[in-house]
């Protein structure tokens, strides 16, 4: 199969699954479709000759973050949206959703501006000189632990904050009662 065809296959899968995510009434189905979408993204990374990014995408996004989502859905036991309800009721009632709609419109405008301002999309996009170098895992390690050393160490602090935050959030209600 030619590479372009593979690209369009994975791209269509990713976009289709993502579109279905927001169309589901059952949050569990949304979680699954999002996993499918991440899988298609991993396929795109493989086509871009970045297998490590593809695998990291599966391990972290599809394997860890989605397990967390799944637990949150099961934990909250978010009820299924009632199919008989007026689908636009929320839009008519809440001011918050209007703000959301405006933000979404702004995002759409921004994205279309960004896409239009990129000239020469017909040709290959220039990714800079070191793109080929970074695609191998040892090179990635070398770059990550020399040039991006500070960012790497900062990540540890971020993880620490997230750990403390999760524990504090989970125990909060107990203290209030």
């Amino acid at each position, binding site marked *: 199969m030619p590479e372009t065809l593979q690209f369009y296959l994975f791209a269509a899968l990713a976009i289709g699954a993502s579109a279905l995510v927001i169309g589901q009434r059952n949050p569990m189905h949304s979680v699954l479709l999002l996993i499918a979408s991440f899988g298609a993204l991993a396929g795109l990374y*493989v086509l871009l000759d970045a297998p*490590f990014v593809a695998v*990291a995408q599966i*391990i*972290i996004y599809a*394997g*860890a*973050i989605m*397990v*967390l989502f799944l*637990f*949150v859905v*099961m*934990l*909250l*036991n978010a009820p299924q949206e009632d199919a008989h309800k007026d689908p636009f009721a929320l839009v008519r009632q809440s001011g918050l959703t209007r703000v959301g709609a405006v933000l979404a419109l702004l995002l759409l405008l921004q994205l279309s501006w960004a896409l239009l301002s990129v000239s020469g999309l017909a040709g290959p996009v220039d990714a800079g000189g070191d793109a080929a170098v970074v695609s191998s*895992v*040892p*090179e*990635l*390690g*070398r770059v*990550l*632990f*020399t040039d991006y*050393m500070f960012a*790497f*160490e900062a*990540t*540890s*602090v971020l*993880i*620490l904050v*997230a*750990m*403390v935050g*999760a*524990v504090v959030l*989970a*125990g909060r*209600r*107990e203290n209030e009662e």
Partner: protein
Amino acid sequence: MDGWLGFVIMSVLGVGFAAVMIGLSVLLGPRNPTPEKLAPYECGMPAVGDARERHSVRFYLVAMIFLLFDIEIAFLYPWAVALRDLGWAGFVQVLTFFCVLTVGFVYVWRKGVLDWGPVARRAGDPVQKKAA
């Protein structure tokens, strides 16, 4: 076989195998449902309530901490592959990284997130009390 083709073939074969087996059983198996057969199993008693109830927040906490350590592991593999070039500088970096993580790990440990069952109950753990 080189490259990802074998990987794709294998996953297609896997899905195909499952589909064929399920299809065969649909064709071969009898179909005679009764309300009792279609009720969830609760030791022979009529089912009480819905199964999808709320669960202990502990599972959420475990998933959260797993996610954070998973990110650490994703960093660890490029480091492990490149260590012979990085030398002691790379070792010190990861040691620092682990030291910061250890602070978080000790905090989580002391807060009783890693305690389950009797140990947690003995410690008068807040998560456990909330679930009860």
